[in-house]
């Protein structure tokens, strides 16, 4: 969806148990989008696919579990070693809560 105007360093995080490289120095939501990791998660009601919508902390669509706590990915910076879990299961498996 988006590309960088200049190059970015990378950090390594874990997403649903698997290692993933994300661009560094930006918000976690921006990093997901830049890495083409969309949908970021699934809604808890119908498990429909969702991704960051407003990037300003209003919509809560980018909420993802970061080290055990659900957080708005647009409001925190991506950090080396973050342990992430997608809400509503992974992209292939939308049935978990």
């Amino acid at each position, binding site marked *: *969806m988006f*590309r960088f*105007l200049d190059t970015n360093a990378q950090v390594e995080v874990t997403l649903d148990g698997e290692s993933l490289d994300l661009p560094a120095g930006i918000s976690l939501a*921006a990093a997901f*989008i830049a890495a083409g990791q969309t949908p970021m998660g699934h*809604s808890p009601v119908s498990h429909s*696919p969702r991704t960051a919508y407003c990037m*300003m902390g209003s919509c*809560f*669509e980018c909420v993802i579990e970061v080290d055990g706590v659900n957080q708005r990915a647009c409001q925190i910076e991506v950090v080396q070693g973050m342990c992430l879990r997608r809400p509503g299961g992974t992209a292939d498996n939308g049935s978990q809560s």
Partner: protein
Amino acid sequence: MKDSYQLAVIGAGPAGMAAAQAAAGHGVDVILFDEQARPGGQIYRNIENTSVDHGLLGKDYAMGAQIVQAFRQASLDYQPNTSVWYLDKSRQIGLLQQGASEQVFAKRIVIASGAQERPMPFPGWQLPGVMTAGAGQVLLKSAAMVPEDGVVLAGCGPLLLLLAWQYLQAGVKIAALLETTPKSNSGKALRHLPKALVASEYLFKGLQLTRAIRRAGIPWHKSVCDLRAEGGPNLKAIHFSSSGKNQCIETGLLLLHQGVIPDLQIAQAAGCGLEWHEARQSWQPKLDNWGESSQLGIFVAGDLGGIVGARAARLTGQLAGLQVAHQLGYLDHAMRDKLAGPIQKARDRHHAIRPFLDAYYRIAESALVPLNETLVCRCEEVTAGHIRDVIALGCNGPNQAKAFTRCGMGPCQGRLCAATVEQIFASAHKKPVSEIGRYNARPPIKPITLGQLADS
């Protein structure tokens, strides 16, 4: 941090910074809380740090560098990375800083929480790949990210054109601009033009943007309606009609904008009374000439008080700061009025453009009142049809509808559905929104965990 301050300012955008500086400049003991890591708010977001050329982002953004620099030098307690999750009428503030909850009291409060984008609901707007124009700007300013070629921009309002212009400067290929502004608006806006001329720089800027976009040859569809996004799991295409013709553009990214509205959550939780502004099609806090709300001691500055733009926001912040200094005994009547005079005059000049812009970019009812199948509440997945079902049951307003359908009960706390639910009620009852009312706002204003509360 101390337990208590004379003034607490919430938000480090143009209004918050100005209010804090104005009060501190006269000796008031000021603390300012902001959720971001650096001052500037959404408008000057990341200005100290961005790697993007300021010229690309435009003159207005570049202006922020000086403003933020001056703010950094003011003698006040600036607390970044701090979210205000609680505020009540007794002026108790609940803060969250690095995961720890704390409590602070302030004699005076200036809320400068700014604006949010007005929701623009249509079938499929929840698909990944559909975002707001504001999101596009945040990605540009704070992450130096621009869309891959083929992005579609849709909606109504100056920000949409500004974003198109910024993308053009950055060499982005825009597939289409879908303007939903109704054709009849320009005629109705004309009568406000003479008054708008006193702030003609806004008009020139608008004309410049328009000309640049035209020159670039971007397909520009006017009077667009019946938007429908399609895809799975990500966006694949946007359907719409323009001049009576159904059309479709394949794209993986659609950026939406339909104006901005005050972000009322904190002000409402603090008990500030609201009023409906018909021309702006939004609620705003009821304020006196200095920005003091119906809860005495709680002030509102900037776009939260009604959308006025960054420059006027700064002036309303200064006025609130002066009045706080006066109320706390740091400025006598005469001095306050002397200092405020030119600021009020300048503010009124910036306000002069608003009636024209409000009329020119007035949103069509069809774009505010969605079809039955459209998700109104994205969190709890409540459709416009569900809301109409409970209206048929006699449901007496948005709060009852919330109770009956869960609309607005999700994590966003109604930020993305409140405006739409009011419009559906108003349209069903054929009454103005002012007679419909609005959701009550509930803490926490910002997320907090039970553990963070328990440990506080």
